[in-house]
Structure formats: structure tokens, C-alpha cells
């Protein structure tokens, strides 16, 4: 088992992790950037469309090209060591990060850690949801846009947020038929430009509709959709049978935060941020000292904010390592905070901002409880704010399909108990 020592370890080389690495490296921090993928760029490497968002450098550029540019900057930076095709497995109390490389398990010892692992797809509950052919939108994009393989001949898209609309268009570009886009909400979730693009190509977008079931012997051979009433119940008699071999789920993302759970950072369920997120302060530091976060793992948003938040995390880590002067620090911190504020000034960001406010209030009460327990060490277990129900999740949300779970065995995958209407409210990228 090889051991590598470094000043800063960053997990995830999406826009957040890359920008964190570039910022920290610019202050002379020896940085190790870990990603389980081979290519750098996270979600960006699948995005063939021109990006929305207002990032001064990147608006209007295709995601794949943004990724390429960022990757070049990383590869040319002598302070950054890249460990690609390397998965982070666990972070231990002594600061050991265990990683699996193509050659085996290694240890990476860093003084600081930034978790920028992004997000994973939400699951939806319906009979047949475990059949091969039911794929997440990210999987469809990976297969099609990274590996050049069509996911099937004919697709039913679930969710009309920007992801559902954009992936539908990408499917059409790749020569795949999109039978319909169904949306449980009464209105289309994504931008009108994306919706009209696919409508012009003959794809019906059916609001107040959802999937009733997917069927097939060994894999998806068809799917039944139906209309929903005001109480989100299917209306008998409105069923339509579609001949499709792929059902694509685009009902939103949820933070990929397992490593943060595992390393003991305080977590909270905040629907506005996409599910369970770590509690973190303005410097992006979690309740576990020296562990910072940035990007979708801290709340589902978009690439431009992920990049700015990544810079903030990189700056804070560099600062805590004593690499940034007071003057530079306050200048840069104000600059990045101002950029984030600008990016979040639109009406679409109201939800994110209220989620962050909620999260900060929880962080505050955790800190206060910790201060109390420190004052009375005999009464409270260390680091355990025992009477903080808000921070003690009542239920464990599944951030990934639990295909082998009991529900899966019954032919239904686990889902967050949130019904079919996730697409509008959950896709922060679109709003």
C-alpha cells in the first residue's frame, strides 16, 4: 500500500473541485486532486449544450469545452498532482484518505480535505423501475455523449426540468426517438427555449402526466403513462401504452455526500438544497475541522456557482494552512463572495438562498450546543449535540437506487418519499 503525503486533498474533479485546486495551488499549496473518472470535468464532460449561467468566462460555451479548458489548466499546474481513475473510499480520524487506484488501495495523507463529489440521480417509485432499460439521465448522457453508444431505440423521458429537456434534445441529436416527456407538475419545469426546441422536433411534452409502470420480461419493452389529478393520483382510464425500450429518469439530483456522513460531518435534510447536505460556514468549512465542501455536494445548483464556491473552499484551505496573507485573503474572499452573490441574484436563486439560510441556522445551533457541552463536559457526550432534533435526521434518504433492497425485490426501487413531482422543484440548474 503506497502512502502519499500532501497539503491538501480534493475529492472530485468537477468544476467545483478543479476551481478549488486551481485557487489553492495559486497560493503555493501542494494539492492532490482525486477523481474516480478518467477525464477531468465531472458533469461538464457530458454536456454538449451551450451553458447557461452568468459566469464571466463560460456563459454560452459548451460544457465539454469548459471542461477541456479547466483540465488543461490543471495539467499545466505544477502544484497539482492528479490521481484520476481513483476512487475515494473513506476518510479517517487521523487524516488518512483511503483511495482505490487501478493498481490497488493507497493511503493519501493530507492536512486539509475538500469534498467536491457532486450529486447523484434521484429515484422514482413505480412497478418495473428496476428493469434494465430504466436509466438515470446522467447514465444516458454518459453512454451516449462520452462513449458514443445509443441507450436504445425509443425513450420515455420522465421530468421536464432542464435536464430532461436537454437530454431529450441530445437523444434526438444522437438519432434516438423520444416518445414523450412526461411531467407531473401542471407546467413545464425547464426553460421555454429548450422545450420549444424538442416540441418542434415532434416530441410531445405531457404535463400532469407520470409513469404508471414499466414492463418487460428481461428488460424494458414498454411503459404505461397516465394523467394525474390535483392530488397527484393517477386517473384510471387515461392510461397510454408506449412502445419504448428506455425509461430515462430526469427528476433531479441529490448530493453525493456519503464521504461526509462517513467522516462524521454534521448533516441536515434541507429540501431546497436537494436532500441531505453537510452544515458548512461562509468559508465552506464543515463541522469537521479542516474538511471543506463545494459544488453540488453542498447543495444542488449549477456549474457557475460550483466554480465560485470551489474557489472559496480552495482559498479557505490555503488560508488555514497559513499560505495567504491577511490582506490577500480579505480581498479575494470579498471578490469571490461578491461573485457568488451576483450569480445568485436572480429570482431562480431564491430557493437556494433560503436553503442556505436554513442550513446556517442549523449550523449555528450545533455550534452553540457544542459550546454548551464543552462547558459541561460531564453531561454531554463529546461532539454530540444530543438535543438537536433538527440536525438528527429522522429518516435516511436513499441517494442512490437501492436495487437490492426489499423494495427493489418487489419490483420497485427505493425513492425519496417525494412522489413524481420532483422535476420542477429539484432541478436548480433549470430554474
Amino acid at each position, binding site marked *: 500500500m503506497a502512502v502519499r503525503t500532501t497539503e491538501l486533498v480534493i475529492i472530485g474533479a468537477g468544476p467545483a473541485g478543479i476551481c478549488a485546486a486551481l485557487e489553492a495551488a495559486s497560493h503555493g499549496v501542494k494539492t492532490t486532486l482525486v477523481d*474516480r*473518472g478518467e477525464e477531468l470535468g465531472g458533469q461538464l464532460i457530458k454536456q*454538449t449544450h451551450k451553458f447557461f449561467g452568468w459566469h464571466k468566462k463560460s456563459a454560452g460555451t*459548451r460544457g*465539454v469545452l469548459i471542461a477541456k479548458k479547466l483540465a488543461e489548466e490543471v495539467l499545466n499546474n505544477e502544484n497539482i498532482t492528479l490521481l484520476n481513475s481513483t*476512487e475515494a473510499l473513506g476518510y479517517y480520524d487521523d487524516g488518512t484518505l483511503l483511495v482505490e487506484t487501478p493498481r490497488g488501495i493507497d493511503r493519501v495523507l493530507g492536512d486539509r480535505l475538500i469534498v467536491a463529489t457532486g450529486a*447523484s*440521480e434521484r429515484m422514482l417509485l413505480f412497478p418495473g423501475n*428496476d*428493469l*434494465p*432499460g*430504466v*436509466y*438515470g439521465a*446522467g*447514465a444516458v448522457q*454518459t*453512454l*451516449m*455523449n462520452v*462513449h*458514443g*453508444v*445509443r*441507450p436504445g*431505440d425509443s425513450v420515455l423521458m420522465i421530468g421536464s426540468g432542464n435536464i430532461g429537456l436537454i437530454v431529450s434534445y441530445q437523444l434526438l*441529436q*444522437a*438519432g434516438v426517438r423520444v416518445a414523450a416527456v412526461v411531467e407531473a407538475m401542471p407546467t413545464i419545469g425547464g426553460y421555454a427555449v429548450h422545450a420549444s426546441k424538442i416540441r418542434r422536433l415532434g416530441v410531445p411534452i405531457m404535463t400532469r402526466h407520470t409513469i404508471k409502470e414499466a414492463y418487460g420480461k*428481461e*428488460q424494458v419493452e414498454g411503459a404505461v403513462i397516465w394523467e394525474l389529478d390535483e392530488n397527484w393520483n393517477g386517473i384510471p382510464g387515461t392510461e397510454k401504452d408506449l412502445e419504448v425500450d428506455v425509461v430515462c429518469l430526469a427528476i433531479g439530483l441529490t448530493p*453525493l455526500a456519503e464521504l461526509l456522513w462517513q467522516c462524521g460531518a454534521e448533516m441536515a435534510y434541507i429540501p431546497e438544497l436537494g436532500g441531505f447536505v453537510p452544515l458548512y460556514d461562509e468559508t465552506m468549512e464543515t463541522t469537521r475541522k479542516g474538511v471543506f465542501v463545494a459544488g453540488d455536494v453542498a447543495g444542488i445548483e449549477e456549474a457557475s456557482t460550483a466554480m465560485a464556491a470551489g474557489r472559496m473552499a480552495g482559498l479557505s484551505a490555503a488560508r488555514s494552512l497559513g499560505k495567504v496573507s491577511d490582506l490577500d485573503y480579505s480581498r479575494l474572499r470579498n471578490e469571490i463572495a461578491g461573485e457568488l452573490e451576483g450569480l445568485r441574484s436572480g429570482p431562480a436563486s431564491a430557493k437556494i438562498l433560503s436553503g442556505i439560510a436554513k442550513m446556517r441556522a442549523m449550523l449555528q445551533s450545533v455550534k452553540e450546543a457544542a459550546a454548551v457541552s464543552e462547558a459541561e463536559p460531564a453531561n454531554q457526550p463529546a461532539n454530540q449535540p444530543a438535543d438537536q432534533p433538527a440536525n438528527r435526521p429522522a429518516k435516511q434518504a436513499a441517494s*442512490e*437506487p437501492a*436495487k*437490492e433492497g426489499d423494495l*427493489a*425485490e418487489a*419490483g420497485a426501487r427505493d425513492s425519496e418519499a417525494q412522489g413524481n413531482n420532483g422535476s420542477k422543484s429539484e432541478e436548480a440548474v433549470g430554474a
Partner: protein
Amino acid sequence: METGRSSCKTRIEDHPILDFPARKEVTFTWEGQELRGYEGEPIAAALHAAGIKVLHTSHKSKRPRGFFCAIGNCSSCLVVVNGVPNVRACTEKLREGMRVQRQEGTGPAPRSRE
């Protein structure tokens, strides 16, 4: 056991935005049947291109499983590669001569190194 409908149109050749560079073709086997794919692509991509979607069966009810997340998150795509079970087909790269098998439940106990 059926391996699913095969389709010759699954590889994207012309794309309005993306170029897929020419890659080296390799031969591998799926359930003993010889197939061709590109070196270094995920095993799941090569199988998908050959029309094979069922990769695994569930432990209890033996329900068919295919890939789902494509990034190594969900363990829905487990296959047996050269006798080693629990290999994620969506992230494991295809190599010349690989013997890939569908994994039934937990798969066989790994043998000592061949």
C-alpha cells in the same frame, strides 16, 4: 437465457457536435460468446452496443439488473470478469481477451489467482 435484442445501430457514427475518435478494436467474450468492442471503453458500453442489457440478477428474487447510474455508484451492473465477481461493468475498462459473465446474485467465490 436470452441476452436481449441485438441492434447494429447502437454505435453513434455521425453526431452534429461530438467526434468519436477511432479506437482500437478488441475481442472479448460474454457468456462464452465472442464479441468485439473498443479497448478502454467501459465493459457496459461494449455490451450495450452489442444489445446486451441484462448484466446481473438480484440476490433474492433473481430479477434482471442492468446498468443504471453509469458512474460506479449503484452496483446494479455487477458482472464476473475473468472469474472475479462484483466487477462494475460501467467503470471497468474493456481489454483484449476479457472473459465477462453475467453475475447471478453474489456470484461465484473468487478463485485463487489464475
